[in-house]
């Protein structure tokens, strides 16, 4: 290990390598419920070349490598399950190019959501990217690589759908450009070449290290508004969402159901965010959205909340802070959630399941669903808060998460960014040929098995 340490120092500099207990402690866990798994070293590269050299060294020593963004995945995917090196990518946070005409941003993998947002606001105010509701230090690469979703996902899909190209360092040390950037100076699309980006999306860092990526940007509307549509019957929700999404007027549609505040308990809210460049356009969009659900309004069984401007503000915040603040509901700094990617028609069953599990496990919960595409699917989230200073409370949340993962898989959904127990559930149901193909691909890309080992493996 001393030799490894020295080699890493020669690559990134003494300041950016640590084998100290403090770093090993903090980097052993994320703010979720998964137990700690400490690395041997934390390394912070500043360039693709440094990443390449670190990977080569790790291969030679057969030491695991775990790439890390902001560590906010909450399901413990960036823990060093088998020790080794945690590669903290956040020094590589340069914004390399904003292409206004083709509307894309080329960034280093450690670039945070917040910094890109701030950069666009100042230098390219007509453009925005789709930000998740994670805190603004969350990295763009981290979120894209786990098929994240956010404020433009109803209009444009998963964040991985918005990807134009990647630069990755393979587990064997080669640097590869994927997408149009493989043959062109422009990072404009993944088509028409064979789309190899799929080898690095949803793989929990087990196939290589993303060092650069280009993501699509979208027009930033001058005026933005939100409507909150409320009903009491979950059976209505799939049709409500089908109708609203069918107008294709909104950018983001997210349902939420929470027992707190008290006035929200038992009601299902659909937040519809939309924007326009003029008041006339905004009103026109609003009217189309309203007209799509008129049948429910006319029957008085659902309606839009009358929200004064001040009350709309939290729903217009990007990223929204409401979910982050859920962590203090138990005065304990913790929450974790199962994000179930599933078809929208499963909404009522998913909702009822969430209520049942919450009641059985007595956890503090919040439920919701972000719509992906034109009702193509949803990311239904079951968020459970816990007090990390209370082991029993943590255990309750863990139990709720495990039961939720199981229930989701049984229902026909798939937990997103699945933690280890959930991975096992998914594998249990997965087409064995798919799993076999995954293993074949990994064995080719990572013959020494150094990339984030322990994930997506059969016991």
């Amino acid at each position, binding site marked *: 290990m001393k030799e490894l340490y020295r080699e890493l120092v020669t690559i990134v500099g003494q300041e950016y390598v640590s084998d100290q207990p403090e770093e090993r402690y903090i980097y052993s866990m994320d703010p979720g419920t998964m137990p700690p798994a400490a690395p041997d070293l934390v390394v912070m590269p500043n360039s693709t070349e440094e990443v390449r050299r670190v990977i080569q060294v790790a291969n030679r020593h057969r030491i695991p490598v775990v790439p890390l963004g902001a560590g906010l995945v909450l399901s413990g995917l960036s823990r060093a399950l088998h020790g080794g090196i945690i590669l903290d990518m956040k020094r590589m946070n340069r914004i390399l190019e904003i292409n206004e005409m083709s509307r894309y941003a080329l960034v280093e993998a450690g670039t945070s959501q917040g910094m890109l947002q701030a950069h666009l606001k100042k230098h390219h105010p007509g453009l925005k990217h789709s930000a998740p509701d994670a805190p603004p230090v969350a990295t763009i690469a981290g979120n894209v690589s786990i098929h994240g979703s956010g404020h433009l996902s109803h209009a444009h899909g998963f964040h991985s759908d918005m990807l134009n190209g990647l630069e990755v360092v393979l587990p064997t040390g080669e640097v590869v450009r994927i997408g149009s950037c493989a043959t062109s100076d422009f990072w404009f699309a993944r088509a028409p070449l064979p789309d190899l980006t799929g080898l690095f999306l949803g793989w929990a860092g087990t196939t290589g290290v993303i060092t650069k990526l280009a993501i699509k940007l979208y027009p930033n509307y001058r005026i933005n508004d939100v409507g909150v549509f*409320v009903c*009491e019957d979950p059976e209505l929700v799939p049709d409500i969402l089908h109708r609203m999404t069918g107008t294709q007027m909104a950018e983001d549609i997210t349902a939420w159901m929470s027992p707190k505040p008290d*006035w929200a308990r038992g009601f299902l809210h659909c937040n519809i965010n939309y924007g326009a460049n003029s008041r006339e356009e905004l009103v026109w969009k609003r*009217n189309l959205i309203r007209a799509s659900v008129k049948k429910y309004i006319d029957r008085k069984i659902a309606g839009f909340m009358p929200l*004064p*401007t001040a009350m709309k503000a939290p729903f217009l915040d990007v990223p929204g802070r409401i979910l982050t603040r859920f962590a203090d509901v138990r005065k304990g700094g913790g929450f974790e959630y199962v994000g179930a990617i599933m078809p929208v028609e499963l909404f009522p069953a998913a909702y009822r399941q969430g209520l049942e599990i919450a009641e059985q496990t007595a956890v503090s919960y919040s439920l919701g669903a972000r719509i992906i595409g034109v009702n193509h699917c949803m990311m239904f989230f079951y968020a459970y808060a816990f007090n990390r200073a209370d082991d029993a409370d943590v255990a309750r949340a863990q139990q709720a998460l495990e039961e939720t993962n199981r229930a989701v898989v049984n229902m026909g959904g798939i937990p997103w960014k699945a933690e280890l127990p959930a991975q096992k559930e998914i594998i249990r149901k997965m087409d064995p040929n798919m799993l076999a193909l995954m293993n074949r691909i990994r064995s080719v890309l990572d013959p020494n098995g150094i990339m984030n080992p322990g994930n997506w493996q059969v016991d």
Partner: protein
Amino acid sequence: MNALKYDPQICVQCETCDCLMRCQYMDFELAEAKAEKQKILAGQPSKVLSDCVTCYACEEYCPADNHPFYQIVERQEEQEVLPVPIPITKQQLRMMQARGTITPATVNKPVINMCFFPMLTGCVRGPLYENASLIVGSDIFCNIMWLHFGKNSVIRERLPRMIDNIWNFYLKDSGVKELVCFHDECYGTYTRLAPAFGMTVPFKSVHLFEYLSARLDHLKDQIKPIGAKVAYQRPCSNRLVPETQPWVDDIFQKVGVERVERRYDRGNALCCGQVFRAQQLDELADDVQQRNLDDMQKAGAAYCVFNCPVCLFTLGDAVAERGIFPILMSDLCQLALE
């Protein structure tokens, strides 16, 4: 219990049917208006029940003070003609429910009743409110808003407890028998609505504007005239107590502002529109707000003075976007004293 006090015969014999004929949102020929009025009296379905936007104005228009609007609300509830979707109504009922956390406190005159607007307690400051006590909270919420939701039953259920709370937790043991209502709606509740439902109110309510006018007299040497043109946004609740309108001009004169002459003022005032949005009538709300704001802007107002916090929350941003400064009446007086 707490039946609405009105005389149906007055309505039967009414020749002018002002309540419907002067309505700003429904158009009638006189014969039709009378026919619809008869249906309301008889408890039969009437399009008035579904088309009423609950602006309260007919309470002012009726020359006999026979509570035409409260009658409409009674029938809406009886016939389940709901102005606002059920889930929205249920949420509002929960939001505004008394929390039961009130504790006794000694107060002294003047007692400023902030109803359930804790975010506005900062208005009560300085010499304008010297030595004032302040009461606020869900347990003293006036509950008049349920008129907008077709829920007289909720008023009957909750208002007596609110009156009791104010009297027993604050006023009685402090030896105080009157309070100043910061919000027009509270003043309307305790002086008009409660008696109409046969509820006894053991304390006297003073309208905020009467209080402010007296304070301005007391502090007249400290007033620096503002010297601006202002528009006044008259709220729906003031329709219940139109006799308080002269205080507006009185205060404006004392603080040195000129009330612009405009179309949608005084008897022709427009609702802020927030209630229309609850009723899912967005296009009507847009129209009413646009006309109201165009009117203020055309008249050259530099300030829009609000009486009602809900009007302020609803229109404040839109007013500001027009270059007009939104301000509560109380804060306008503070401005003159700075």
